[in-house]
């Protein structure tokens, strides 16, 4: 029965079909980097992907739960001697019930992977005009030094609309710098410089917390990022640098 086994192969390979549009979508939607992510800031982009992922898993969960609940109610035992009537699966059905669900799962995985890849590129490519800030974590303090040499603890003041990149290192144990509004976390550790960048797009204050366990006062290690207008920022810089000798400012800015 050579023909029959060939037929099996053909039918089996048909089950791979859903992979093709998924792959096509993958390569189409994830170029190395896009110049403009629909005009989204990185955290708006994050929110989009988050909502899409949530929608995805909600649909999966609701469908799965409805089917399970339906089975639970429909197949209650009615008589004392009643047995289950699981239909005998043919050889093709056995293979099909593995290959087709796997292709569906893989399709959804690839769909989400592409979204994540795109977002990853957005979050991990620093704009050329980003202002650098050096961040040092210690138990239990965040120390920011910006390019003007302004040295602050647990508070970073930045002008609105200008991307900021943080270059981070820890002096003692692991810490993790999480900016609540900007949806970004990255660990700080001794021996390596890590970084993250964000786009301050709205005036006001937002919370910064530590997200890697760092001892007794781990939950006391928090601060804020204050976004101000360009004019306010210029005034802030003038005020801060006036009280700092110029030489120190340059030295600390040169550190990174």
């Amino acid at each position: 029965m050579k023909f029959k086994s060939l037929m099996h192969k053909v039918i089996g390979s048909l089950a791979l079909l859903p992979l093709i549009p998924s792959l096509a979508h993958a390569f189409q939607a994830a170029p190395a980097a896009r110049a403009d992510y629909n005009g989204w800031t990185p955290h708006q982009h994050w929110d989009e992907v988050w909502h899409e992922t949530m929608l995805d898993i909600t649909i999966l969960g609701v469908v799965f739960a409805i089917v399970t609940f339906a089975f639970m109610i429909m197949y209650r035992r009615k008589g004392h001697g009643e047995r289950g009537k699981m239909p005998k699966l043919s050889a093709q059905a056995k293979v099909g019930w593995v290959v087709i669900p796997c292709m569906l799962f893989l399709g959804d995985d690839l769909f989400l992977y592409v979204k994540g890849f795109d977002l990853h590129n957005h979050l991990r490519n620093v704009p050329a005009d980003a202002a650098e800030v050096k961040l040092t974590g210690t138990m239990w303090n965040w120390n920011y030094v910006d390019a003007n040499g302004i040295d602050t603890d647990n508070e970073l003041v930045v002008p609105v609309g200008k991307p900021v990149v943080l270059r981070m290192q820890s002096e003692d144990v692991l810490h993790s710098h999480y900016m609540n509004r900007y949806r970004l976390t990255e660990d700080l550790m001794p021996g390596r410089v890590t970084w993250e960048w964000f786009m301050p797009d709205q005036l006001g204050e937002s919370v910064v917390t530590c997200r890697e366990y760092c001892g007794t006062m781990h939950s006391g290690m928090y601060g804020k990022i204050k976004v101000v207008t360009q004019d306010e920022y210029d005034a802030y810089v003038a005020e801060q640098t006036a009280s700092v000798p110029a030489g120190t400012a340059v030295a600390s800015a040169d550190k990174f």
Partner: protein
Amino acid sequence: MSGFMGHEPDGRPGQPKTVKEWVFTLDHKVIGVWYLIGAIASFVVAGLAASAMRIELGSVGPDITDNGDIYNLWLTMHGAVMVLGFQIPALLGFVANWAVPIMVGGKDMAFPRVNAMSVWLLWSGILLALANLVIPDSWNGMWTGYPPYSLTDGAGNTALYSFIVVVLGMSSVFGAVNLACTVAFMRCKGMGWFQMPLTVWCVFTANVIQLIFVPVLAASVILLSLDKYLGFGFYNPEVGGDVLLYQNLFWFYSHPAVYVILLPFMGIMFEIFAVSARNDVFNYKATVWSVIAFIPVSSDVWVHHAYVAGLPDWLRLLQTFTTLLISLPFGLLMLSLTGTLFRGSIRYTGPMWWAMAAFMMLIIGALTGIPNALSAVDYGISDSYVIMSHFHYVMAVSGSMSIFAGVFFWFPKLSGRMCNEFLTKATAAGFFVGMNIVMGPLYLAGIEGMPRRYMDYQMFADNATIVDAQHWSTIGLYITFVSALLTIVTWLHGAIAGEKATSANPWGSESLEFTATAIIPGQGNFPTPVICPEGWHPYNFIDNPKPQFEPHPGTSGHH
């Protein structure tokens, strides 16, 4: 049928009667019960730690303590004891030791003496872990023990931590070798690999994963002690080490370890689903292969614990994909579980209530895992309550509800008595509702940015979602607490004063531990070695041939 596990179907003595016999026993069933007692004791200790933390977090500001070290000690004890003292011993100790040898028709484990050593190593580990509550420099570096913090004096006694992990690891490895040999060589005549119950397959696979990965964990924590006390510097960048080495080594074991927990508890679900629905497991062979597929797939997922730890971007993207691949074998297992109900004949017994509730929690827990696999999404939710809520839904709630389902399922075989059915169902409902109120709101708090491992959240005091979620979560704790307490009361009541079991097979299983043994299996489990006849299958509820027994040596007539 006298007393606890006291039945001797073939008249042979051997069930423990004195304390000495209990302690020096080599019987896999008694050792299994020792594992269970250790696991439940650990569950109580770690549960009390969880309750203390939950009450502390009920409102902003100090509630019952303002001491960060005390809170961190509770947190460390909760995580470490729940994982290493409760879940792994309950599944790879109790289920593996008590149930698996009987399910495969063996008279004991392959190496009974090694088995006794494993259980006492576990108890040593549990007692050492409890000692951590009273020693002056108690370990507070969490169950993960990340350096450089674990190398500082603030973290407490690193040597104790390393030692406990190594002791428990040895217990696991000895147990794993023993169980793998039992499944491979102690199966009764006529039972092929594809005639084993799925519980056996899941426990077997979990133990293979243990064998491959536990040595890596042991190495990583031994290096920790070498670093701290002898100044080796594997994890110290000042002398050329790297702090990330530890995270890679640790999660190379510890993510597969979650499948070590997941697979056996899904195995319990399969057993209870099939028996309650009197139905064949959907696509049995494919399900077995999905279980086996966890071995290679789980070896390539550890980086998702370190997406924000400063690893190279290409590694994050690569492991995002390999992590997502776990959804294939896992999805097939979920499909098989639901499929097992299809055209079944479901009887909602007490164990089935627990298993059904565990399955519901597993659906939520599994789906909330998908976003965490995406590295870019993880930048926003890493180390937040989103992660905490996810793994509590999967491991903590679904896992412990399945374990409890299994305890209720095999309870008549342990004690010869039945648990009160109403209490069994009421506690299942209470635990399910309570844990949803504990963990559901915390997921929303996590989306708002609430980080894990915090004793207070004054920075979010004006965020109504977080404050309300914490408040409701603490209310949910009280429901869960009462339910868990009642569950233990139900067992004690069942063991002491429960209705006597009248059948050796109260749930109508086709598996050997119910069909071929007495109400309480005696020494050697079966009167004479059991034989699975041609065409026997543990999930054939329609025309399964009855298991047969080799003739008793005394009655064979010619020798």
